[in-house]
């Protein structure tokens, strides 16, 4: 009996200790691979005493994990700006951002506007911008000539291209067919018909795809080894390959690159909001943001960071996007229900022979 009571006592103590004392001293972030360099984590700890704990993930997993716990388990998440409204309306997994606690002057105003437009639910803002970039094509210019998404289906590229079997691919091929999928977001019927069309295009093209990649490294390795000569990819990955091999370049597709932006959001039952706001203000400081941008290879939403950017990255950006981001299309927020339509089409593509 005495032993049992002792055990209980130890367990109770351990639970109490881990729960209360640490919450203010640690910040649990769920984010993408490479988004938070170790150097930045160390600097944050030195400045504030808060230890950052990272969980690496992607859009769908972030939402699913937060959904499973009702928004608990993490203090800060970084989903893409178009994936916030739907998830919030459906699952209530985030809490609104208190703008008074954030130094908004540090952000690029245009990007904050996009967040306001696409991540406001019931008049409350749920997200602030973190990094952004565009998705287009990566091409080995010695081995293939590709100017638009549908060129990946040219017969001479059989078995040598790759895309992700996810919604960006559907959007890209819809744009390349001359239609605007984003304009049809409100019209479910027309949208479903367009997606069916895109699905047929992708099925006809399936022999050209060597694989559907799930993670960045799978594609990078494919391109490096020469197995893949052209693929859909976001700018930073292409620029990284370009630094290794100048023949590999990012191509801004004729029908337009699609811009993405990943954000800061607060999970509904996060335990360290104060720490999360500290982290947001810290990572948007120009000197810190420049370091992050360099490590990630993408652009920060911090206003002052651009001057401090690596010249090489600026050059690559200029070469890829001569007229800046004017020709680029931003993802609008996805209304709930559309993903089910897309899901059926993606399943059909996967199953086709």
């Amino acid at each position, binding site marked *: 009996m005495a032993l049992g009571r002792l055990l209980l006592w130890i367990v109770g103590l351990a639970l109490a200790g881990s729960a209360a004392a640490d919450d203010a001293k640690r910040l649990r972030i769920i984010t993408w691979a490479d988004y938070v360099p170790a150097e930045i984590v160390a600097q944050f700890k030195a400045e504030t005493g808060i230890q950052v704990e990272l969980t690496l993930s992607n859009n769908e997993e972030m939402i699913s994990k937060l959904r499973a716990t009702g928004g608990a388990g993490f203090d800060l998440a970084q989903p893409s700006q178009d994936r916030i409204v739907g998830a919030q309306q459906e699952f209530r997994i985030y809490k609104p951002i208190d703008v008074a606690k954030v130094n908004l002057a540090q952000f690029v105003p245009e990007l904050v506007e996009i967040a306001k437009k696409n991540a406001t639910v019931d008049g409350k803002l749920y997200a602030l911008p973190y990094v952004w970039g565009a998705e287009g094509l990566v091409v080995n210019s010695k081995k293939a000539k590709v100017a638009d998404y549908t060129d990946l289906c040219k017969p001479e590229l059989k078995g040598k291209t790759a895309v992700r079997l996810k919604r960006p691919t559907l959007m890209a091929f819809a744009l390349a067919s001359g239609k605007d999928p984003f304009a049809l977001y409100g019209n479910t019927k027309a949208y479903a018909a367009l997606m069916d069309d895109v699905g047929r295009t992708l099925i006809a093209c*399936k022999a050209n795809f060597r694989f559907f990649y799930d993670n960045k490294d799978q594609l990078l390795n494919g391109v490096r*080894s*020469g*197995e893949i000569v052209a693929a859909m990819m976001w700018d930073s990955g292409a620029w990284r390959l370009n630094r290794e091999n100048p023949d590999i370049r990012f191509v801004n597709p004729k029908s337009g690159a699609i811009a993405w932006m990943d954000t800061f959001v607060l999970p509904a039952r996060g335990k360290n909001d104060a720490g999360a706001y500290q982290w947001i203000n810290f990572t948007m400081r120009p000197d810190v943001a420049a370091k992050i941008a360099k490590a990630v290879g993408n652009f920060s939403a911090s206003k002052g960071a651009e001057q401090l950017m690596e010249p090489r990255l600026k050059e690559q950006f200029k070469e890829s996007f001569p007229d800046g981001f004017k020709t680029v299309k931003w993802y609008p927020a996805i209304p709930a229900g559309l993903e089910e339509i897309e899901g059926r089409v993606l399943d059909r593509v*996967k199953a086709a022979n």
Partner: protein
Amino acid sequence: MTGAAAPRLQARLMLGLMLAPPLLWLFALIVLPHVDLAVLSFRERLGPGEYGRSLEQYRTFFGEPLYWHVFVRTAVMSAIATLLTLLMAFPVAWTIAKLARGRLGALLLVVCLLPFWVSETVRTLGWMILLRESGVLPQLLYHLGLTAAPVELLYHDATILVGLVYTSLLFMVVPLVNSFESLDNSLIEAAYDLGASGFAILREIVIPHAKPGITAGCIVVFMLTLGNYLTPNLLGGKNSQWFTEQIYTQFITRFNWEQGAAFGFLLLALSTAMVWLGLKLSGQRFGDVMRRA
């Protein structure tokens, strides 16, 4: 009377106490989640955050040919993988149980076990390094002049089968070795003395004796294969289409837990049905088979 009942009660209490942890574990980690999933699978999304009772998820499965195609495909491929594993494990197990003497037998078993010292992910990635177009095997074939250009050996159904057989070989070898070891050698010698052929001995003596072991191995391998996620996904690439992948997709990328739960139960029903069918066809009883394994 009371004198005899008290110790019996105590013994029963002891048994209850000893069984409590596994029963609790079984209930909290297996029964409860399954009940939750069952409830989930009979739900349907009506609007944002709004759900109602329905059979819609199961109707979708039968209505969309795609899903049950993948379902049937997974079952057939798993059955083929199980059969191939049996064919490959049979001689291996025979060698370990009957031909290798003493320490050699133990050594051979360890050799079978060795690949399991690394995780399944690493083993599968190993296959990918060997089989990809710029990988070891295609390059070797190319440099030996056997193929005109390096051939992509990944992303075929056959590749999936190779991976599955490789991962499940051990689970077939162990029950087979067990049942071969209990086979009296004098039976085989007597059969030879009476002029039986090797094939007749296999058919009349070895297989009937090893039947429970064979069935046990097949059940374990079939279930492992059917529920495998990693191997078909990584080795099968764009054509993999394993049913577990559908479940993952529904849960994680589609946020459609209801559909995922329904798929999960269909898979459970499938494996139960296949095991029952296997036992019926081979005339075995589940209890006997599991004791042998």
